[in-house]
């Protein structure tokens, strides 16, 4: 992976000091849905190969922010995004940015497992095919197998790759979706409450998976579970009413938050 190529001078206010380079930089991001503003001047730096969790009460804008990072808000009617969003120095919102390539680099896993109603194999191979990452069958086979192995699904489904992906259990489906996302070799993985539809055992597997994936990908995860945020992330951003109230290393945010509201939220007294 290339080094960052940030050119602007940064104001001293925000960045968290760390040795990891900055992967995604958000500066004064504002998002409007028709006449309602969802995000107010959100500025944050997300570091490379780190897991950042976004927490906060419902409707606080965490998912909105997450969807800004791969322009999934484009398809939402009446949604306007302004402010600076850069990934490796590339302006995400610039008209010249190819949204197809952007979404290949910034993969996404959704709240509800949403495999395509195709075979397990085709689910994973679809992204490879549309981005032409491999064209001959043997290469695709290998990439599919690799991706499935990465998420620990290959052994479970090796003998039924051609059966429908929708026939798997919820946890398996979600891992299939993660395999589908990493098959196109993204740099960033966005996860929008990936475990909220899963039972505790499947949740534990996904969390273990995130732990392994952090070595190769920058991961941003939205979660409603404090414990999950504490378990899987290095950095935590606390959103409230469309602004980031607090951002810092997870240990610090959870043990010694600077904001009173953060303390109230993570201890369950509010939210």
């Amino acid at each position, binding site marked *: 992976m290339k080094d960052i190529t940030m050119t602007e001078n940064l104001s001293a206010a925000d960045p968290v000091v760390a040795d990891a380079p900055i992967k995604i930089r958000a500066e004064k991001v504002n998002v409007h849905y028709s006449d309602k503003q969802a995000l107010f001047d959100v500025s944050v730096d997300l570091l490379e190969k780190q897991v950042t969790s976004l927490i906060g009460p419902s409707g606080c804008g965490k998912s909105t922010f997450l969807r800004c990072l*791969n322009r*999934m808000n484009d*398809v939402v*009617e009446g949604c306007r995004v302004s402010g600076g969003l850069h990934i490796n120095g590339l302006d995400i919102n610039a008209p010249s940015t190819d*949204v*197809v*390539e*952007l*979404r*290949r680099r910034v*993969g*996404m*896993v*959704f709240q*509800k497992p*949403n*495999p*395509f*109603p195709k075979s397990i194999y085709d689910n994973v191979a*679809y*992204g490879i095919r*549309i*981005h032409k990452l491999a064209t001959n069958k043997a290469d695709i086979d290998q990439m599919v197998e690799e991706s499935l192995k990465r998420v620990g699904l290959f052994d479970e489904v090796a003998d039924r790759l051609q059966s*429908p992906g*929708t026939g798997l259990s919820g946890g398996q489906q979600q891992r299939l*979706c993660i395999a*589908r*996302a990493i098959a*196109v070799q993204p740099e960033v993985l966005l996860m929008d409450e990936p475990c909220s539809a899963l039972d505790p055992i499947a949740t534990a597997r996904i969390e273990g998976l995130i732990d392994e994936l952090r070595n190769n990908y920058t991961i941003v995860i939205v979660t409603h579970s404090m414990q999950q945020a504490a378990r899987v992330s290095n950095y935590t951003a606390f959103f409230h009413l469309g602004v980031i109230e607090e951002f810092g290393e997870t240990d610090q945010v959870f043990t010694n938050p600077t904001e009173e509201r953060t303390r109230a939220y993570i201890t369950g007294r509010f939210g």
Partner: protein
Amino acid sequence: MTDIPNKTPTTGVQGSNSALRNAKRRQRAERRFRFYGFAGVVFALGCLAILLTSLTARGVTAITHSKIQLEILFDETVIDPNGTRDEDEMSRADYQGLVKSALRELFPDANSRRDKKALYKLVSSQAGLSLRDMVLQDPSIIGEKRAIWLIAGDDVDVFRKQTSANTGSLKKKQVSWVRDLEAEGLIENQFNSQFFLSGDSREPEMAGILGAVMGSFLTLLVCFVASFPVGVLAAVYLEEFAPKNKISHIIEVNINNLAAVPSIVFGLLGLALLLNVFGLPRSAPVVGGLVLALMTLPTIIIATRAALKAVPPSIREAAYGLGASPMQVTFHHVVPLSMPGILTGSIIGMSQALGETAPLLLIGMVAFIVDIPTSFVDPATTLPVQIFIWADSPERGFMEKTAAAILVLLAFLLCMNLLAVILRKKFERKY
């Protein structure tokens, strides 16, 4: 359906009397409601059964028709007086005359002009055509005498099929001749291939359904080719790509209104535009198909949009999240998933088009056409129009033809609906 056990414990939780009364009233209302629903279903099924039985009872007799066996002498002096074996000359000969002389030979008692005329009516006035075909196919039979089954006249056929003692339009003499033929086994019911293999005719016994079937088929083909791609693409654009603003809203309202426009108006449009401005041929399947396509378009668009809407947004999100372009999302995921709905809607639209008469009357497809159409610009008629024409004809022989044609039309519809079900099953996928 009505006897679902409906007992409620009358003791226990329902302590007070008013609660008990309430529960009883509620259960009565439930039973009543279920009975109304069931009665509605029974009534609808009963009507359908009555319709089908009456149609079948009338139409099923058209499967057979009466044929009379005559000893035909292929007289060379009549067929080919010059002995040239020239096809042109042979096809112009008076074959009906051969039939007539065979009849006279069989019943020598018919001497007066009136009797002879009545006698000739026993056999179809077109029976000579089949003799001509035989001769043209094999000229070596000229000069021979052969026993040949010929199609009986329509009055004879109607008389033999009816169950009452009424002689219909047959005269006393004719009835006795028919009885004589029956006694000698020279008249019998045979499978009516004529009905399934020939075009329309003024003579009920010669009229067939194939011309109308072919016309309907060609017309529907044009209709499908014109309306399916246009309708599906229009719906996909409106649903997936068009911005949701005033203009697209107005278009949507107008499409819905178009679906409610009386079909005869589309016929007028076809007459004014396709025939008068573009100069397309009258009575041709291509014009009929285009007019019906106009009529079918709104149905297809509405059905397709509903099917596209039913695809869960999570599938779209998954594809977008992988970096699929809007076109890839639409054609790799959304359209294949909505295929069952699209096909069902389209086939329902085509079924409507199949049964449509009014717009076709205006573009001249109501004409009397004997030849079976083989191309899109041949004059043709369609099944419902054929039914209309036959039902309008005074000859009694057309009555069973009408019912039989309706049965054929219903069979067509049944096949199309079956196709819809099969396609639906084939494309259906769980998500």
